[in-house]
């Protein structure tokens, strides 16, 4: 029960240490966190229908974060997405935000900024869940 009250954060990052660090931080803060090394891994995993969001690295091997975002939109997965990137370029940022991303954060990201973005993402997820589905 507790598990289900805690939001589930999906972390997609090919950098092992970054992924582990994020997972651990979010867990300690009080979230459930699952890490994926690539977009493929994430897509292959059965996605539980739980309150949460996606922390998505922009530069991923194979198909990029933007492509995953597009794929999820096509599949109807509406989990809010926060982009993380090692190198923010304007065009990618614009594309991500236009496609509905909650935020576009540049690594290294300070905890406050991350938590603030997570808060908005989770709020957005709650709004989404209470929206058309529940009414």
């Amino acid at each position: 029960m507790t598990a289900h009250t805690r939001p589930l954060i999906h972390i997609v990052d090919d950098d092992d240490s970054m992924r582990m660090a994020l997972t651990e931080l979010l867990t300690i803060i009080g979230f459930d966190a699952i890490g994926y090394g690539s977009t493929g891994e994430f897509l292959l995993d059965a996605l539980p229908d739980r309150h949460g969001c996606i922390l998505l690295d922009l530069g991923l091997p194979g198909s990029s974060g933007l492509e995953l975002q597009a794929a999820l939109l096509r599949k109807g997965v509406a989990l809010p997405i926060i982009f993380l990137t090692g190198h923010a370029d304007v065009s990618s940022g614009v594309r991500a935000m236009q496609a509905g991303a909650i935020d576009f954060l540049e690594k290294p990201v300070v905890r406050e900024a991350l938590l603030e973005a997570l808060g908005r993402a989770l709020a957005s997820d709650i709004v989404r869940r209470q929206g058309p589905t529940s009414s």
Partner: protein
Amino acid sequence: MLALLLLHFAATAEAGQVLVLYSNSPLGKGNIAFDSGLRQTINANSGQPIQIFSESLDEPEFGGDRYELTMATYLHDKYAERPLGAVLTLNDTALRFILRYRERLFPGVPIVYAGATRNWLRSMPTLPPDIVGVPVGFDFAGTVEQALKWHPRATHLVVVIGASKQDDWEPLVRPEITPILGQVQAEYLIGLTLPALQRHLRELGSDSVVLTFGFFQDGDGRSYLLHDSAALVAAASSAPVYTPVETLMGTGVVGGRVLSYEQIGRQAGEILGRLFNGQPGWQRMPKAPASVLQVDWRQIKRWGIDPEQIPPDAVVSFRPPTLWQAYRNAVLGAVTVIVLLSVLVASLLLERLRRRRAEITMQKQHTALAHASRLAVAGELTAAIAHEINQPLGAVQTNADTAEVILQAGGDRREDLLRLVGRIRNDNLRASQVIKRLRALLARQEARRQPLELNAVLTDVEAFLRPELQRRDMSLALRPAKTPARILGDETQIQQVLINLILNAMDALAEAPLDRRSILVQVECTTGTHSVSVKDQGRGFADGDLSKLFDSFFSTKRTGMGLGLSIARTIVVAHGGSIRAERGPSGGAIFHVELPAHEASENAA
């Protein structure tokens, strides 16, 4: 028949025969010079061949009335059948003899005298008109003058005179030299014994000069050849010895103003020539030849006389021929060769200097260009580099945040904290390694040569480019050689070549479909050469571009500077290798880089 022959002979002989009567041995130095001068001119002036007979009175060894009578009889009998066209006498004694016996020996035959001294002639009664010649005088004054010029500190002139009648030069010498002596004291050593003379000469100081004529007899009555006695005087003397007598040159005397017997001979030859030629007025005599300064180079050196003070018209004997005189042609040739070689060497040195400068300039430009090119590469890779650095920094930040949260929550979670700190440290190291790699690439440094292994270099390059490859959704397949591919080179430069080639391949693949976005890099080892080929399946290049690919500022890319391949080639060539491009079998491009194997290491391996 015999009579006819004799008659004929006599007729021809009469016109062309001359008797030369010497006072002393015809083998003496002066007489030989005289004879040589005579023969030089007599035929040229006579218009017919002249036969020359030589006789000598052999003075001073022989003399006296009885001897002269014997000689007269001998000459009378000897030349009775040889009618002479002229008789030529040399020096006083011969002329005196002829004047005495002429009527009995050679009546009516013209007499020409040479070398008879003015002083002696003055003491004689006037000569008949068919006895002609050029009187001469020894240049005592000129000789002493020259000696005093070369020895300005001399205060003492020693005149050496022998004991015989013929040796009595004093009455001739004294009046001539007295006017020019000035403060210089003249001392006449007359008729000393040889030992006394030698002792005296040995004790002379540097304030003395000696004048000698040689002598025939010393105070003991011993006889000498003039040449020998002069040599004894010169050997004994501690002061420089001078003489006006040409024949004494070489005996150790410094020199003097002498009569040239060769010149006297020439003059006599001219007179006789005109006589035989029947020229009217042949009796008109020329002036006596001027005395000539003769010096012995060895004595000039011995007495420390400045060679600059030798007048240019002086005759210098016994000077070792200079290199120039002895080997004129060889010296000319050698000098020419040396000059040519020097010019060649100089121009080669200049050329080398010029080339070296150009090389240095080029190296600098090359370094600068290579650096610029690497900066360009770095610019191209900015996104990837930033990603590479920010990734570990992001992890560091997050782990630090986690640690902070744990500490704020309180409780004993030391192990978690230690783990986090360990991770922070690792990620931090990762970030600094990226920076280090970048700095190595961008450092502007001189080329170094060090042993490298191509497989390892490629592994580094691949690691460096991996983020960029990921960013562009491309893959790089690395096929290393099975054996170590060792070369000698500059690691940064070789890396740069490979990075340039791979980046080019990546650019070529920019618009390629995903399934073709791979680059194959292969290392192959053959004997002596290792090669790296970079193959892509991109857009390739046009045939016409193939030849221009490696030119500077040639680019098929819109944003390219056109330096990458040019610099790659410069680097490869500088490493003794080669680079070429070809079109791949299924489109795309293949670049081959071949570098010489580093043999030493291979043997060791």
